[in-house]
Protein backbone atom coordinates (compact mmCIF):
# COMPACT_ATOMS: atom_id res chain seq x y z
CA UNK A 1 0.00 0.00 0.00
CA UNK A 2 1.19 3.51 -0.80
CA UNK A 3 2.26 5.65 2.14
CA UNK A 4 -0.37 8.16 3.27
CA UNK A 5 1.28 11.60 3.01
CA UNK A 6 -1.43 13.33 5.10
CA UNK A 7 -0.56 11.42 8.26
CA UNK A 8 3.10 12.26 7.83
CA UNK A 9 2.37 16.01 7.60
CA UNK A 10 -0.37 16.45 10.21
CA UNK A 11 0.80 13.80 12.60
CA UNK A 12 -2.71 12.53 13.26
CA UNK A 13 -3.42 14.96 16.16
CA UNK A 14 -5.76 17.96 16.75
CA UNK A 15 -9.37 18.78 15.82
CA UNK A 16 -8.86 18.43 12.09
CA UNK A 17 -8.18 14.91 11.13
CA UNK A 18 -6.16 13.84 8.18
CA UNK A 19 -7.94 11.45 5.84
CA UNK A 20 -7.81 7.94 7.19
CA UNK A 21 -5.97 5.30 5.26
CA UNK A 22 -9.28 3.94 4.04
CA UNK A 23 -10.29 7.37 2.71
CA UNK A 24 -6.91 7.78 1.14
CA UNK A 25 -7.25 4.40 -0.55
CA UNK A 26 -10.78 5.21 -1.69
CA UNK A 27 -9.48 8.46 -3.16
CA UNK A 28 -6.73 6.72 -5.08
CA UNK A 29 -9.00 4.00 -6.47
CA UNK A 30 -11.74 6.48 -7.42
CA UNK A 31 -9.26 8.64 -9.28
CA UNK A 32 -7.99 5.58 -11.08
CA UNK A 33 -11.55 4.61 -11.97
CA UNK A 34 -12.23 8.07 -13.41
CA UNK A 35 -9.06 7.83 -15.45
CA UNK A 36 -10.27 4.50 -16.81
CA UNK A 37 -13.59 6.17 -17.69
CA UNK A 38 -11.76 8.77 -19.74
CA UNK A 39 -9.61 6.11 -21.38
CA UNK A 40 -12.72 4.12 -22.35
CA UNK A 41 -13.58 6.75 -24.97
CA UNK A 42 -10.16 6.49 -26.57
CA UNK A 43 -10.30 2.68 -26.46
CA UNK A 44 -13.80 2.81 -27.94
CA UNK A 45 -12.70 4.85 -30.95
CA UNK A 46 -9.71 2.57 -31.50
CA UNK A 47 -11.92 -0.52 -31.15
CA UNK A 48 -14.44 0.87 -33.66
CA UNK A 49 -11.67 1.44 -36.21
CA UNK A 50 -10.14 -1.97 -35.53
CA UNK A 51 -13.43 -3.88 -35.66
CA UNK A 52 -14.82 -2.28 -38.83
CA UNK A 53 -11.37 -2.34 -40.44
CA UNK A 54 -10.93 -6.01 -39.54
CA UNK A 55 -14.30 -6.99 -40.99
CA UNK A 56 -13.56 -5.01 -44.13
CA UNK A 57 -10.14 -6.63 -44.59
CA UNK A 58 -11.25 -9.55 -46.81
CA UNK A 59 -13.06 -7.13 -49.12
CA UNK A 60 -10.12 -4.72 -49.16
CA UNK A 61 -7.78 -7.56 -50.17
CA UNK A 62 -10.21 -8.72 -52.80
CA UNK A 63 -11.23 -5.46 -54.46
CA UNK A 64 -8.43 -3.03 -53.44
CA UNK A 65 -9.05 0.61 -54.38
CA UNK A 66 -11.02 -0.42 -57.47
CA UNK A 67 -13.93 -0.77 -55.05
CA UNK A 68 -14.11 3.01 -54.87
CA UNK A 69 -14.22 3.47 -58.62
CA UNK A 70 -16.56 0.68 -59.68
CA UNK A 71 -20.29 1.18 -59.95
CA UNK A 72 -21.46 -2.46 -59.97
CA UNK A 73 -23.19 -4.03 -56.97
CA UNK A 74 -23.81 -7.61 -57.94
CA UNK A 75 -24.22 -10.04 -55.05
CA UNK A 76 -24.47 -13.15 -57.27
CA UNK A 77 -21.19 -12.54 -59.07
CA UNK A 78 -19.47 -11.08 -55.99
CA UNK A 79 -18.66 -7.85 -57.76
CA UNK A 80 -18.95 -4.76 -55.63
CA UNK A 81 -18.23 -1.06 -56.07
CA UNK A 82 -19.41 2.11 -54.37
CA UNK A 83 -18.73 4.94 -56.81
CA UNK A 84 -22.46 5.82 -57.19
CA UNK A 85 -22.83 5.83 -53.41
CA UNK A 86 -19.81 8.07 -52.87
CA UNK A 87 -21.14 10.40 -55.57
CA UNK A 88 -24.65 10.36 -54.09
CA UNK A 89 -23.36 10.97 -50.57
CA UNK A 90 -21.22 13.96 -51.58
CA UNK A 91 -23.77 15.39 -54.04
CA UNK A 92 -26.76 15.20 -51.68
CA UNK A 93 -24.73 16.50 -48.74
CA UNK A 94 -23.31 19.44 -50.72
CA UNK A 95 -26.75 20.43 -52.03
CA UNK A 96 -28.23 20.12 -48.54
CA UNK A 97 -25.37 22.17 -47.15
CA UNK A 98 -26.01 24.96 -49.66
CA UNK A 99 -29.64 25.20 -48.59
CA UNK A 100 -29.02 24.70 -44.87
CA UNK A 101 -26.00 27.03 -44.96
CA UNK A 102 -28.04 29.91 -46.40
CA UNK A 103 -30.98 29.37 -44.06
CA UNK A 104 -28.86 28.50 -41.03
CA UNK A 105 -26.61 31.56 -41.22
CA UNK A 106 -29.57 33.85 -41.92
CA UNK A 107 -31.43 32.41 -38.94
CA UNK A 108 -28.29 32.85 -36.81
CA UNK A 109 -28.09 36.53 -37.88
CA UNK A 110 -31.81 36.91 -37.25
CA UNK A 111 -31.49 35.52 -33.74
CA UNK A 112 -28.32 37.28 -32.61
CA UNK A 113 -28.50 40.74 -34.20
CA UNK A 114 -31.47 42.19 -32.30
CA UNK A 115 -34.18 41.53 -34.87
CA UNK A 116 -36.45 40.08 -32.21
CA UNK A 117 -37.14 41.03 -28.60
CA UNK A 118 -35.12 38.62 -26.39
CA UNK A 119 -38.19 36.67 -25.30
CA UNK A 120 -39.37 36.00 -28.85
CA UNK A 121 -35.81 35.13 -29.86
CA UNK A 122 -35.74 32.40 -27.20
CA UNK A 123 -39.00 30.96 -28.53
CA UNK A 124 -37.80 31.04 -32.12
CA UNK A 125 -34.50 29.44 -31.13
CA UNK A 126 -36.44 26.65 -29.43
CA UNK A 127 -38.43 26.09 -32.62
CA UNK A 128 -35.23 25.65 -34.63
CA UNK A 129 -33.62 23.49 -31.92
CA UNK A 130 -36.70 21.28 -31.83
CA UNK A 131 -36.03 20.33 -35.44
CA UNK A 132 -33.01 18.46 -34.10
CA UNK A 133 -35.26 16.53 -31.73
CA UNK A 134 -37.47 15.08 -34.48
CA UNK A 135 -36.21 11.54 -35.19
CA UNK A 136 -34.80 10.79 -38.62
CA UNK A 137 -37.47 8.16 -39.43
CA UNK A 138 -40.23 10.65 -38.70
CA UNK A 139 -38.64 13.07 -41.17
CA UNK A 140 -38.53 10.18 -43.63
CA UNK A 141 -42.21 9.46 -43.18
CA UNK A 142 -43.03 13.17 -43.49
CA UNK A 143 -40.89 13.34 -46.62
CA UNK A 144 -42.75 10.46 -48.27
CA UNK A 145 -46.23 11.80 -47.55
CA UNK A 146 -45.71 15.58 -47.54
CA UNK A 147 -42.55 16.67 -49.36
CA UNK A 148 -42.74 14.36 -52.39
CA UNK A 149 -46.40 15.22 -53.24
CA UNK A 150 -45.67 18.91 -52.57
CA UNK A 151 -42.73 19.20 -54.97
CA UNK A 152 -44.11 16.91 -57.67
CA UNK A 153 -46.01 19.61 -59.66
CA UNK A 154 -42.99 21.92 -59.68
CA UNK A 155 -40.67 19.03 -60.60
CA UNK A 156 -42.90 17.95 -63.49
CA UNK A 157 -43.16 21.50 -64.77
CA UNK A 158 -39.38 22.04 -64.57
CA UNK A 159 -38.71 18.75 -66.35
CA UNK A 160 -41.14 19.56 -69.15
CA UNK A 161 -40.09 23.16 -69.74
CA UNK A 162 -36.35 23.23 -68.99
CA UNK A 163 -35.58 19.50 -69.18
CA UNK A 164 -32.50 20.17 -71.32
CA UNK A 165 -30.67 21.44 -68.23
CA UNK A 166 -28.90 18.38 -66.73
CA UNK A 167 -30.32 19.09 -63.25
CA UNK A 168 -33.88 18.58 -64.50
CA UNK A 169 -33.20 15.90 -67.11
CA UNK A 170 -35.35 13.15 -65.59
CA UNK A 171 -38.87 13.16 -64.23
CA UNK A 172 -39.56 12.71 -60.53
CA UNK A 173 -40.98 9.23 -60.12
CA UNK A 174 -41.39 9.42 -56.35
CA UNK A 175 -38.30 9.02 -54.20
CA UNK A 176 -35.33 10.89 -55.55
CA UNK A 177 -32.43 13.20 -54.87
CA UNK A 178 -34.43 16.43 -54.47
CA UNK A 179 -36.86 15.33 -51.73
CA UNK A 180 -33.98 13.59 -49.94
CA UNK A 181 -31.85 16.72 -50.15
CA UNK A 182 -34.62 19.00 -48.93
CA UNK A 183 -35.29 16.83 -45.89
CA UNK A 184 -31.55 16.47 -45.29
CA UNK A 185 -31.12 20.25 -45.30
CA UNK A 186 -33.91 20.61 -42.74
CA UNK A 187 -32.17 18.04 -40.55
CA UNK A 188 -28.79 19.79 -40.56
CA UNK A 189 -30.28 23.29 -40.24
CA UNK A 190 -30.25 23.24 -36.40
CA UNK A 191 -26.56 22.23 -36.34
CA UNK A 192 -25.54 25.02 -38.72
CA UNK A 193 -27.78 27.60 -37.01
CA UNK A 194 -26.61 26.72 -33.48
CA UNK A 195 -22.86 26.82 -34.19
CA UNK A 196 -23.21 30.01 -36.29
CA UNK A 197 -25.12 31.67 -33.45
CA UNK A 198 -22.27 30.82 -31.08
CA UNK A 199 -19.85 32.31 -33.60
CA UNK A 200 -21.79 35.60 -33.75
CA UNK A 201 -22.03 35.77 -29.96
CA UNK A 202 -18.26 35.39 -29.65
CA UNK A 203 -17.67 38.65 -31.57
CA UNK A 204 -16.81 41.30 -28.97
CA UNK A 205 -19.60 43.82 -28.41
CA UNK A 206 -17.19 46.71 -28.96
CA UNK A 207 -16.52 45.65 -32.54
CA UNK A 208 -20.19 45.92 -33.39
CA UNK A 209 -20.68 49.19 -31.49
CA UNK A 210 -17.67 50.71 -33.23
CA UNK A 211 -19.21 49.94 -36.63
CA UNK A 212 -22.54 51.45 -35.61
CA UNK A 213 -20.70 54.45 -34.24
CA UNK A 214 -19.18 55.06 -37.67
CA UNK A 215 -22.70 55.46 -39.05
CA UNK A 216 -23.03 52.06 -40.70
CA UNK A 217 -26.51 50.71 -41.24
CA UNK A 218 -27.59 47.51 -39.55
CA UNK A 219 -26.85 45.35 -42.59
CA UNK A 220 -23.54 47.07 -43.27
CA UNK A 221 -22.58 46.12 -39.73
CA UNK A 222 -23.77 42.56 -40.25
CA UNK A 223 -22.31 41.92 -43.69
CA UNK A 224 -19.05 43.89 -43.47
CA UNK A 225 -18.17 43.47 -39.78
CA UNK A 226 -20.02 40.66 -38.07
CA UNK A 227 -19.92 38.01 -40.80
CA UNK A 228 -16.22 38.46 -41.64
CA UNK A 229 -15.29 38.46 -37.93
CA UNK A 230 -17.35 35.35 -37.25
CA UNK A 231 -16.33 33.68 -40.51
CA UNK A 232 -14.17 31.04 -38.81
CA UNK A 233 -17.06 29.88 -36.64
CA UNK A 234 -19.51 30.02 -39.56
CA UNK A 235 -17.14 27.95 -41.66
CA UNK A 236 -16.83 25.32 -38.94
CA UNK A 237 -20.63 25.29 -38.63
CA UNK A 238 -20.78 24.48 -42.34
CA UNK A 239 -18.15 21.75 -42.06
CA UNK A 240 -19.84 20.12 -39.06
CA UNK A 241 -23.23 20.39 -40.77
CA UNK A 242 -21.68 18.73 -43.80
CA UNK A 243 -20.39 15.95 -41.54
CA UNK A 244 -23.91 15.46 -40.16
CA UNK A 245 -25.33 15.28 -43.68
CA UNK A 246 -22.77 12.67 -44.79
CA UNK A 247 -23.74 10.22 -42.07
CA UNK A 248 -27.50 10.80 -42.04
CA UNK A 249 -29.19 7.52 -42.77
CA UNK A 250 -32.85 6.75 -42.24
CA UNK A 251 -34.55 9.71 -43.89
CA UNK A 252 -32.30 9.24 -46.90
CA UNK A 253 -32.85 5.50 -47.07
CA UNK A 254 -36.59 6.24 -47.20
CA UNK A 255 -36.45 9.13 -49.67
CA UNK A 256 -33.53 8.79 -52.05
CA UNK A 257 -34.77 5.74 -53.96
CA UNK A 258 -31.73 3.50 -53.35
CA UNK A 259 -30.76 3.28 -56.99
CA UNK A 260 -27.26 2.42 -58.06
CA UNK A 261 -26.68 5.19 -60.59
CA UNK A 262 -24.75 8.39 -61.09
CA UNK A 263 -26.81 11.29 -62.36
CA UNK A 264 -26.69 15.05 -62.13
CA UNK A 265 -30.48 15.19 -62.22
CA UNK A 266 -32.16 16.35 -59.04
CA UNK A 267 -35.21 14.23 -59.77
CA UNK A 268 -33.57 10.87 -60.39
CA UNK A 269 -33.24 8.29 -57.62
CA UNK A 270 -29.74 7.90 -56.20
CA UNK A 271 -28.03 6.25 -53.23
CA UNK A 272 -25.70 7.17 -50.39
CA UNK A 273 -23.18 5.15 -48.43
CA UNK A 274 -25.28 5.26 -45.27
CA UNK A 275 -28.50 4.23 -46.99
CA UNK A 276 -26.65 1.48 -48.88
CA UNK A 277 -25.69 0.08 -45.47
CA UNK A 278 -29.21 0.48 -44.12
CA UNK A 279 -30.92 -1.19 -47.06
CA UNK A 280 -28.46 -4.03 -47.79
CA UNK A 281 -27.06 -4.98 -44.39
CA UNK A 282 -30.08 -6.75 -42.86
CA UNK A 283 -30.23 -9.36 -45.63
CA UNK A 284 -26.56 -9.59 -46.55
CA UNK A 285 -24.63 -12.86 -46.76
CA UNK A 286 -21.05 -13.22 -45.58
CA UNK A 287 -19.31 -11.93 -48.71
CA UNK A 288 -21.63 -8.96 -49.05
CA UNK A 289 -21.14 -8.12 -45.36
CA UNK A 290 -17.40 -7.76 -45.95
CA UNK A 291 -18.07 -5.47 -48.92
CA UNK A 292 -20.52 -3.45 -46.81
CA UNK A 293 -17.92 -3.20 -44.06
CA UNK A 294 -15.52 -1.76 -46.63
CA UNK A 295 -18.20 0.79 -47.56
CA UNK A 296 -18.69 1.55 -43.83
CA UNK A 297 -14.95 2.08 -43.48
CA UNK A 298 -15.00 4.58 -46.37
CA UNK A 299 -17.92 6.43 -44.76
CA UNK A 300 -16.10 6.39 -41.43
CA UNK A 301 -12.95 7.82 -43.01
CA UNK A 302 -14.83 10.59 -44.83
CA UNK A 303 -16.85 11.66 -41.77
CA UNK A 304 -13.83 11.44 -39.44
CA UNK A 305 -11.79 13.72 -41.70
CA UNK A 306 -14.63 16.22 -42.11
CA UNK A 307 -15.37 16.27 -38.38
CA UNK A 308 -11.73 16.58 -37.34
CA UNK A 309 -11.32 19.52 -39.73
CA UNK A 310 -14.53 21.17 -38.45
CA UNK A 311 -13.65 20.75 -34.79
CA UNK A 312 -10.08 21.89 -35.46
CA UNK A 313 -11.27 25.15 -37.05
CA UNK A 314 -13.84 25.68 -34.29
CA UNK A 315 -11.25 25.22 -31.54
CA UNK A 316 -8.83 27.56 -33.30
CA UNK A 317 -11.39 30.36 -33.73
CA UNK A 318 -12.59 30.02 -30.15
CA UNK A 319 -9.01 30.26 -28.95
CA UNK A 320 -8.49 33.37 -31.08
CA UNK A 321 -11.37 35.15 -29.38
CA UNK A 322 -10.46 33.86 -25.94
CA UNK A 323 -7.03 35.45 -26.35
CA UNK A 324 -8.46 38.91 -26.99
Amino acid at each position, binding site marked *: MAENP*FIKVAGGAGITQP*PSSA*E*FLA*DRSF*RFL*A*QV*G*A*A*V*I*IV*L*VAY*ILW*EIGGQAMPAIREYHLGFLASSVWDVQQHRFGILPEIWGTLYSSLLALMIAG*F*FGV*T*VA*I*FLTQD*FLPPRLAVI*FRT*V*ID*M*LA*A*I*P*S*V*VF*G*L*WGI*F*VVIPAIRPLADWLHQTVGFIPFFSTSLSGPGLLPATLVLSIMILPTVAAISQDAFRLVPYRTKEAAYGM*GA*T*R*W*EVILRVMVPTASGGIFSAMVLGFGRAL*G*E*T*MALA*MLIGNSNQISLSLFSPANTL*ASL*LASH*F*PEAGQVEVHAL*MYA*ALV*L*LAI*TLIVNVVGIGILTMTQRKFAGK
Partner: protein
Amino acid sequence: MNTSTAPALQAGAHTHDLRRSIGEPRALRSTLLTVGAWIVALIAAVPLISVLYMLIIKGGSRFSLDLFTELPPAGFELGGGFGNAIVGTLVMVGIAALISIPIGILAAIYLAELAPTSRLAAVTRFLGKVLTGFPSILAGVFIYAAVVLTMGTYSALAGGISLAVLMLPTLVLTAEEAMKTVPRKMKDAALGMGCTRTQMIWKIVLPTGLPGILTGVMLGIARVSGESAPLLFTALFSNYWLHSTTEPTASLSILIYNFSSMPFDNQIELAWAASLVLVLIVLVFNILSRIIGRSKF
Protein backbone atom coordinates in the same frame (compact mmCIF):
# COMPACT_ATOMS: atom_id res chain seq x y z
CA MET B 1 -30.64 55.95 -34.74
CA ASN B 2 -31.19 59.54 -35.79
CA THR B 3 -27.83 60.12 -37.38
CA SER B 4 -27.83 62.22 -40.52
CA THR B 5 -27.01 60.20 -43.57
CA ALA B 6 -23.67 60.90 -45.17
CA PRO B 7 -24.74 61.54 -48.79
CA ALA B 8 -27.31 64.10 -47.66
CA LEU B 9 -24.56 66.04 -45.89
CA GLN B 10 -22.32 66.03 -48.92
CA ALA B 11 -25.08 67.11 -51.24
CA GLY B 12 -25.53 70.26 -49.21
CA ALA B 13 -28.18 71.58 -51.54
CA HIS B 14 -30.97 70.08 -49.46
CA THR B 15 -31.90 71.21 -46.05
CA HIS B 16 -30.23 69.06 -43.42
CA ASP B 17 -32.88 66.52 -42.62
CA LEU B 18 -31.73 64.56 -39.61
CA ARG B 19 -34.31 61.81 -40.06
CA ARG B 20 -33.26 58.74 -41.98
CA SER B 21 -35.01 58.64 -45.34
CA ILE B 22 -36.24 55.25 -46.47
CA GLY B 23 -35.58 56.28 -50.07
CA GLU B 24 -31.88 56.67 -49.44
CA PRO B 25 -30.09 53.66 -51.08
CA ARG B 26 -28.20 52.45 -48.01
CA ALA B 27 -31.23 52.65 -45.77
CA LEU B 28 -33.41 51.07 -48.43
CA ARG B 29 -31.00 48.18 -48.88
CA SER B 30 -30.90 47.62 -45.14
CA THR B 31 -34.69 47.61 -44.92
CA LEU B 32 -35.04 45.19 -47.83
CA LEU B 33 -32.49 42.83 -46.29
CA THR B 34 -34.34 42.99 -42.98
CA VAL B 35 -37.56 42.01 -44.72
CA GLY B 36 -35.65 39.23 -46.48
CA ALA B 37 -34.26 37.93 -43.20
CA TRP B 38 -37.77 37.83 -41.72
CA ILE B 39 -39.04 35.85 -44.70
CA VAL B 40 -36.13 33.37 -44.54
CA ALA B 41 -36.60 32.91 -40.80
CA LEU B 42 -40.32 32.31 -41.19
CA ILE B 43 -39.71 29.77 -43.98
CA ALA B 44 -37.22 28.00 -41.69
CA ALA B 45 -40.01 27.54 -39.15
CA VAL B 46 -42.39 25.96 -41.69
CA PRO B 47 -40.98 22.37 -41.66
CA LEU B 48 -41.36 21.95 -37.90
CA ILE B 49 -44.90 23.29 -37.98
CA SER B 50 -45.75 21.00 -40.90
CA VAL B 51 -44.24 17.94 -39.19
CA LEU B 52 -46.08 18.62 -35.94
CA TYR B 53 -49.34 19.31 -37.81
CA MET B 54 -49.11 16.01 -39.70
CA LEU B 55 -48.26 14.12 -36.51
CA ILE B 56 -51.24 15.53 -34.68
CA ILE B 57 -53.71 15.13 -37.57
CA LYS B 58 -52.58 11.74 -38.92
CA GLY B 59 -51.18 10.22 -35.74
CA GLY B 60 -53.77 11.69 -33.42
CA SER B 61 -56.69 10.33 -35.45
CA ARG B 62 -55.52 6.79 -34.75
CA PHE B 63 -54.76 7.38 -31.08
CA SER B 64 -56.33 4.83 -28.74
CA LEU B 65 -55.47 2.51 -25.90
CA ASP B 66 -55.12 -0.42 -28.33
CA LEU B 67 -51.92 1.10 -29.65
CA PHE B 68 -50.22 0.44 -26.34
CA THR B 69 -51.59 -3.01 -25.59
CA GLU B 70 -51.71 -4.83 -28.93
CA LEU B 71 -49.11 -6.33 -31.23
CA PRO B 72 -48.32 -5.08 -34.77
CA PRO B 73 -50.78 -6.40 -37.37
CA ALA B 74 -49.64 -8.56 -40.28
CA GLY B 75 -50.43 -7.84 -43.93
CA PHE B 76 -54.14 -7.29 -44.48
CA GLU B 77 -55.06 -7.42 -40.81
CA LEU B 78 -56.92 -4.43 -39.41
CA GLY B 79 -56.42 -2.81 -36.03
CA GLY B 80 -53.43 -3.72 -33.92
CA GLY B 81 -50.93 -1.57 -32.11
CA PHE B 82 -47.28 -1.42 -31.19
CA GLY B 83 -47.10 -2.14 -27.47
CA ASN B 84 -44.09 -4.41 -27.95
CA ALA B 85 -42.24 -1.68 -29.84
CA ILE B 86 -42.76 0.85 -27.05
CA VAL B 87 -41.46 -1.67 -24.51
CA GLY B 88 -38.52 -2.50 -26.79
CA THR B 89 -37.56 1.15 -27.26
CA LEU B 90 -37.74 1.85 -23.53
CA VAL B 91 -35.75 -1.28 -22.61
CA MET B 92 -33.00 -0.54 -25.12
CA VAL B 93 -32.77 3.12 -24.11
CA GLY B 94 -32.62 1.91 -20.50
CA ILE B 95 -29.73 -0.45 -21.29
CA ALA B 96 -27.95 2.39 -23.10
CA ALA B 97 -28.41 4.68 -20.09
CA LEU B 98 -27.18 2.04 -17.63
CA ILE B 99 -23.99 1.57 -19.63
CA SER B 100 -23.17 5.10 -20.65
CA ILE B 101 -24.14 7.14 -17.57
CA PRO B 102 -21.51 5.69 -15.16
CA ILE B 103 -18.75 5.69 -17.77
CA GLY B 104 -19.72 9.14 -19.02
CA ILE B 105 -19.79 10.73 -15.58
CA LEU B 106 -16.50 9.10 -14.55
CA ALA B 107 -14.88 10.38 -17.73
CA ALA B 108 -16.36 13.84 -17.17
CA ILE B 109 -15.01 13.88 -13.60
CA TYR B 110 -11.57 13.11 -14.95
CA LEU B 111 -11.84 15.82 -17.63
CA ALA B 112 -13.28 18.52 -15.39
CA GLU B 113 -11.71 17.87 -11.99
CA LEU B 114 -8.85 15.44 -11.87
CA ALA B 115 -6.64 16.30 -14.81
CA PRO B 116 -8.22 18.94 -17.05
CA THR B 117 -4.97 19.81 -18.80
CA SER B 118 -3.41 16.36 -19.10
CA ARG B 119 -2.72 14.81 -22.46
CA LEU B 120 -5.20 11.98 -21.80
CA ALA B 121 -7.91 14.59 -21.11
CA ALA B 122 -7.09 16.54 -24.27
CA VAL B 123 -7.27 13.42 -26.44
CA THR B 124 -10.46 12.20 -24.74
CA ARG B 125 -12.14 15.58 -25.14
CA PHE B 126 -11.19 15.76 -28.80
CA LEU B 127 -12.34 12.22 -29.57
CA GLY B 128 -15.54 12.88 -27.62
CA LYS B 129 -16.28 15.83 -29.89
CA VAL B 130 -15.45 13.76 -32.96
CA LEU B 131 -17.79 11.01 -31.74
CA THR B 132 -20.73 13.43 -31.44
CA GLY B 133 -20.56 13.70 -35.23
CA PHE B 134 -20.15 9.93 -35.63
CA PRO B 135 -22.81 8.62 -38.07
CA SER B 136 -25.30 6.57 -36.09
CA ILE B 137 -25.44 3.83 -38.74
CA LEU B 138 -21.74 3.15 -38.09
CA ALA B 139 -22.51 2.48 -34.43
CA GLY B 140 -24.84 -0.22 -35.74
CA VAL B 141 -22.18 -1.61 -38.09
CA PHE B 142 -19.63 -1.64 -35.26
CA ILE B 143 -21.93 -3.38 -32.78
CA TYR B 144 -22.98 -5.85 -35.47
CA ALA B 145 -19.34 -6.84 -35.83
CA ALA B 146 -18.49 -6.67 -32.14
CA VAL B 147 -21.62 -8.03 -30.44
CA VAL B 148 -24.09 -9.60 -32.89
CA LEU B 149 -21.47 -11.76 -34.61
CA THR B 150 -20.02 -12.77 -31.23
CA MET B 151 -23.37 -13.62 -29.64
CA GLY B 152 -24.68 -15.16 -32.83
CA THR B 153 -28.04 -13.41 -32.53
CA TYR B 154 -29.69 -10.03 -32.88
CA SER B 155 -30.73 -8.81 -29.44
CA ALA B 156 -32.02 -5.97 -27.29
CA LEU B 157 -28.63 -6.05 -25.59
CA ALA B 158 -26.79 -5.35 -28.85
CA GLY B 159 -29.29 -2.59 -29.67
CA GLY B 160 -28.82 -1.05 -26.24
CA ILE B 161 -25.03 -1.12 -26.49
CA SER B 162 -25.09 0.56 -29.91
CA LEU B 163 -27.29 3.31 -28.46
CA ALA B 164 -24.84 3.62 -25.53
CA VAL B 165 -22.02 4.33 -28.01
CA LEU B 166 -24.07 7.24 -29.36
CA MET B 167 -25.10 8.52 -25.95
CA LEU B 168 -21.67 8.52 -24.35
CA PRO B 169 -20.07 11.56 -26.08
CA THR B 170 -23.05 13.89 -25.47
CA LEU B 171 -23.05 12.83 -21.85
CA VAL B 172 -19.32 13.32 -21.27
CA LEU B 173 -19.18 16.78 -22.86
CA THR B 174 -22.30 18.17 -21.12
CA ALA B 175 -21.35 16.66 -17.74
CA GLU B 176 -17.89 18.18 -18.03
CA GLU B 177 -19.38 21.61 -18.74
CA ALA B 178 -21.75 21.19 -15.78
CA MET B 179 -18.92 20.34 -13.40
CA LYS B 180 -16.88 23.29 -14.64
CA THR B 181 -19.67 25.68 -13.62
CA VAL B 182 -19.31 24.66 -9.97
CA PRO B 183 -17.54 27.66 -8.38
CA ARG B 184 -13.82 27.25 -7.81
CA LYS B 185 -14.21 28.69 -4.30
CA MET B 186 -16.46 25.87 -3.16
CA LYS B 187 -14.02 23.26 -4.40
CA ASP B 188 -11.08 25.05 -2.78
CA ALA B 189 -12.98 25.38 0.48
CA ALA B 190 -13.64 21.64 0.55
CA LEU B 191 -10.00 20.83 -0.20
CA GLY B 192 -8.89 23.36 2.42
CA MET B 193 -11.00 21.59 5.04
CA GLY B 194 -8.97 18.47 4.39
CA CYS B 195 -11.24 16.65 1.99
CA THR B 196 -9.61 14.26 -0.38
CA ARG B 197 -10.29 14.94 -4.06
CA THR B 198 -12.78 12.10 -4.07
CA GLN B 199 -14.71 13.50 -1.09
CA MET B 200 -14.69 16.93 -2.70
CA ILE B 201 -16.14 15.46 -5.91
CA TRP B 202 -18.84 13.42 -4.16
CA LYS B 203 -19.87 16.05 -1.62
CA ILE B 204 -19.44 19.29 -3.58
CA VAL B 205 -19.04 18.86 -7.33
CA LEU B 206 -21.61 16.15 -8.05
CA PRO B 207 -24.47 17.56 -5.90
CA THR B 208 -23.88 21.13 -7.12
CA GLY B 209 -23.41 20.16 -10.74
CA LEU B 210 -26.30 17.69 -10.67
CA PRO B 211 -28.82 19.81 -12.64
CA GLY B 212 -26.33 20.26 -15.45
CA ILE B 213 -25.34 16.59 -15.42
CA LEU B 214 -29.00 15.52 -15.51
CA THR B 215 -29.55 17.90 -18.43
CA GLY B 216 -26.84 16.02 -20.30
CA VAL B 217 -28.35 12.66 -19.36
CA MET B 218 -31.80 13.74 -20.55
CA LEU B 219 -30.39 15.16 -23.80
CA GLY B 220 -28.50 11.93 -24.39
CA ILE B 221 -31.64 9.86 -23.79
CA ALA B 222 -33.69 12.14 -26.03
CA ARG B 223 -31.10 11.83 -28.77
CA VAL B 224 -30.93 8.05 -28.78
CA SER B 225 -34.59 7.21 -28.21
CA GLY B 226 -35.39 8.45 -31.72
CA GLU B 227 -32.48 6.61 -33.32
CA SER B 228 -33.22 3.86 -35.78
CA ALA B 229 -30.14 3.37 -37.93
CA PRO B 230 -28.10 1.68 -35.16
CA LEU B 231 -30.99 -0.70 -34.35
CA LEU B 232 -31.57 -1.89 -37.93
CA PHE B 233 -29.16 -4.78 -37.69
CA THR B 234 -28.42 -4.99 -33.98
CA ALA B 235 -31.92 -5.35 -32.50
CA LEU B 236 -33.64 -6.11 -35.80
CA PHE B 237 -37.41 -6.31 -35.21
CA SER B 238 -39.92 -8.67 -33.68
CA ASN B 239 -43.67 -9.03 -33.91
CA TYR B 240 -43.94 -10.42 -30.40
CA TRP B 241 -43.59 -9.19 -26.84
CA LEU B 242 -40.12 -8.95 -25.36
CA HIS B 243 -39.19 -12.06 -23.38
CA SER B 244 -35.46 -11.72 -22.91
CA THR B 245 -32.78 -9.22 -23.80
CA THR B 246 -30.96 -11.77 -25.94
CA GLU B 247 -33.50 -12.07 -28.73
CA PRO B 248 -34.51 -9.77 -31.63
CA THR B 249 -36.48 -6.84 -30.28
CA ALA B 250 -39.02 -4.42 -31.72
CA SER B 251 -38.58 -0.66 -31.51
CA LEU B 252 -40.81 2.24 -32.47
CA SER B 253 -38.37 3.70 -34.96
CA ILE B 254 -37.86 0.44 -36.87
CA LEU B 255 -41.63 -0.12 -36.86
CA ILE B 256 -42.10 3.29 -38.52
CA TYR B 257 -39.41 2.46 -41.08
CA ASN B 258 -40.91 -0.95 -41.91
CA PHE B 259 -44.51 0.24 -42.04
CA SER B 260 -43.78 3.39 -44.07
CA SER B 261 -43.02 1.32 -47.15
CA MET B 262 -46.03 -0.99 -46.86
CA PRO B 263 -48.93 -0.67 -49.29
CA PHE B 264 -51.60 -1.01 -46.56
CA ASP B 265 -53.44 2.01 -45.17
CA ASN B 266 -53.68 0.44 -41.73
CA GLN B 267 -49.89 0.12 -41.47
CA ILE B 268 -49.34 3.68 -42.70
CA GLU B 269 -51.77 4.97 -40.07
CA LEU B 270 -49.92 2.98 -37.42
CA ALA B 271 -46.62 4.43 -38.65
CA TRP B 272 -47.99 7.95 -38.09
CA ALA B 273 -49.35 7.04 -34.66
CA ALA B 274 -45.99 5.46 -33.74
CA SER B 275 -44.24 8.64 -34.94
CA LEU B 276 -46.45 10.71 -32.66
CA VAL B 277 -45.64 8.47 -29.68
CA LEU B 278 -41.92 8.51 -30.51
CA VAL B 279 -41.81 12.30 -30.89
CA LEU B 280 -43.68 12.65 -27.59
CA ILE B 281 -41.11 10.42 -25.85
CA VAL B 282 -38.24 12.43 -27.34
CA LEU B 283 -39.89 15.75 -26.48
CA VAL B 284 -40.60 14.71 -22.89
CA PHE B 285 -36.89 14.05 -22.31
CA ASN B 286 -35.97 17.24 -24.15
CA ILE B 287 -38.34 19.33 -22.06
CA LEU B 288 -37.14 17.58 -18.88
CA SER B 289 -33.59 18.53 -19.79
CA ARG B 290 -34.62 22.18 -20.22
CA ILE B 291 -36.56 22.28 -16.95
CA ILE B 292 -33.74 20.66 -14.98
CA GLY B 293 -31.18 22.86 -16.70
CA ARG B 294 -33.03 26.02 -15.71
CA SER B 295 -33.22 25.16 -12.02
CA LYS B 296 -29.61 26.10 -11.37
CA PHE B 297 -28.42 27.21 -7.96
